[in-house]
């Protein structure tokens, strides 16, 4: 079965005056996600620009404001988006410069993400949803078997939804932002030596760091990957305070 979907998207081309809304009507299968609506709009009008790559919430490119909330269209069902509404409204993420239509400029965001130098692979859990794996023997680069833990990609997909939802980000682009601070928190958990841990903590303590956050927790609410950036920010603050108190009393 298919659905006829009225959809309104924000259109903008630089040098083409102010942004405006444009309405489309597309047909998609019942079980489609909102990304399929965007592709259908593009088939009608190939001048329409939007970001997408993987269609399964791993690349993090397709984030938009859907009916006023930060969402990943690739995993958001059309039927859900239409609940209680006559049309779907799609706008670019906030707190990013708009490049054109739904495409935002993520350059400054990725530069901030790089500050922590977080490597995006981490050790996989010892249990998969309650079932334990007891062995992991993996071929090394020479084709020999070696015991080492499985690895997997980090939870954060760098989609920027948390930055769009963050009221502090709206007030200042100097802020690292929720994803950047969550990356610093993850990087210090992975850091092998105390020196590295404390320089990451110092980064979070800096001008762009955790003290700018107004504790609105919108980031954690918006995150499609359960990264909990707000929790990471609170953990960094807690450890910074502990550190400062210890330094004040001259103990370590």
């Amino acid at each position, binding site marked *: 079965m298919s659905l006829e979907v009225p959809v309104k998207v924000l259109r903008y081309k630089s040098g*083409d005056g102010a942004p405006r809304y444009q309405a489309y009507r597309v047909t998609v299968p019942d079980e489609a996600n909102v990304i399929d609506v965007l592709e259908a709009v593009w088939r009608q009008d190939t001048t329409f620009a939007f970001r997408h790559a993987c*269609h*399964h919430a791993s*690349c993090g490119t397709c984030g938009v404001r859907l009916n006023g909330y930060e969402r990943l269209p690739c995993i958001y069902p059309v039927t859900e988006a239409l609940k209680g509404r006559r049309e779907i409204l799609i706008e670019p993420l906030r707190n990013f410069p708009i490049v054109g239509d739904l495409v935002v400029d993520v350059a400054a965001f990725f530069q901030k993400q790089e500050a922590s130098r977080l490597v995006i692979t981490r050790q996989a859990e010892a249990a998969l949803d309650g079932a334990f794996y007891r062995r992991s023997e993996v071929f090394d680069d020479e084709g020999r078997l070696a015991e080492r833990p499985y690895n*997997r990609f980090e939870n954060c997909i760098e989609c920027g939804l948390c930055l769009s939802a963050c009221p502090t980000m709206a007030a200042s682009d100097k802020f690292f932002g929720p994803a950047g601070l969550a990356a610093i928190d993850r990087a210090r958990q992975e850091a092998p030596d105390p020196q590295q841990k404390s320089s990451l903590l110092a980064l979070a303590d800096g001008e762009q760091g955790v003290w700018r956050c107004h504790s609105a927790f919108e980031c954690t609410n918006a995150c499609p990957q359960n990264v909990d950036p707000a929790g990471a920010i609170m953990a960094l603050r807690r450890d910074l305070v502990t550190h400062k108190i210890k330094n004040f009393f001259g103990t370590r």
Partner: protein
Amino acid sequence: MPAPHAIVIGAGSTGAATAHDLALRGLRVTVLERGEIASGTTGRNHCLLHSGGRYCVKDQESAIECIDENLILRRIMPGVLELNDGLFVAITEDDLAFKDKFLEGCAACHIPARDLPVKHALEMEPFLNPKILAAVQIPDGVFEPFRFCLAFLATAKQHGAVVRSYTEVTELLCSGRSVTGVKILDHRTGQTETLGADLVVNATGPWADKIARMAGMDVPVSPTAGVMVTVNKRLNNMVINRLNKPSDGDIVVPQRLTSIIGTTSWTVPDADQIEIPKEHIDKMIHKGQELIPAIQQTSTRGVGAVARPLIRRAGGDEREVSRTFECFDHRRDGVDGFVTISGGKTTTARAMAEKVADIVCGKLGLRAECRTRETRLVSYRLFYN
């Protein structure tokens, strides 16, 4: 004299790796991509860093390409691959009968393989169907396609390449029987412009024929679609493959917090017009459960379909078409300054780039060795510097 200017059309894995190779060899490179980086075939691929196991019985040329490139990519892009190997598992007697041929194929293609006792395999992957009859471990891996491309492009940019996304090539400019540049439409501004080039590389995968037609040429590429279904739980760490000939729903690839079931295969007339048949989604879930029964307890997180670029050779159905790649110097069709690279897989993107860059340098009279085998790629995030 300034270095020659090459335009690469397409910023999927092939275009990204080609830009990197050409930039390392000292060319001035401009990459043009009509959408986001990896928004075509690469972005929606299965994320599988092939060991070659899938092809080692029927398509050994592809299998050898895969294992060779797998080992190179481990060296040049460390930290951005999930490296947990893969299992080929037998569910039926027919699967089991395939095992000896599979092990012989692995040996012939120098793919490391270990015949695992079933009990041992189940200790490594507890959600695997407990009724499996055999399991063979091979060095499959997992990548993230968008960042795979960014890593190549970030390194290319450090060597001077310019990457323009949301920039669509609308015409190939010709002078006599030579391609001399392109006309482009910038979707960010709505403006058109022309760009001159000493050579244009068509790295547009299943769209290769569409681009080649702009110069009045055909490329024998069949856009062949496949459906992938992603579930909302990660149920495996190793890539789980069906031990048998390639078939629909023969693989479950883990990635991040999910498992991805794939895939089907049908030829489509236009890579931009793919409708996902509902029965393909159902089939993926059903076939995936044969490998990992717990898929039944998950819900679907995402569904995608995209066209692979398969190179047509003599006859046969699309499952039998070789997954290797091919480079077409269109001088053989009477048009100079224009080369197409298509086919292949993301796993073999670097090798594809090496081949096309050799041809490009030959055509331009440049003597420059390929250095991509040993050049470590920079952080993918530096693409945005």
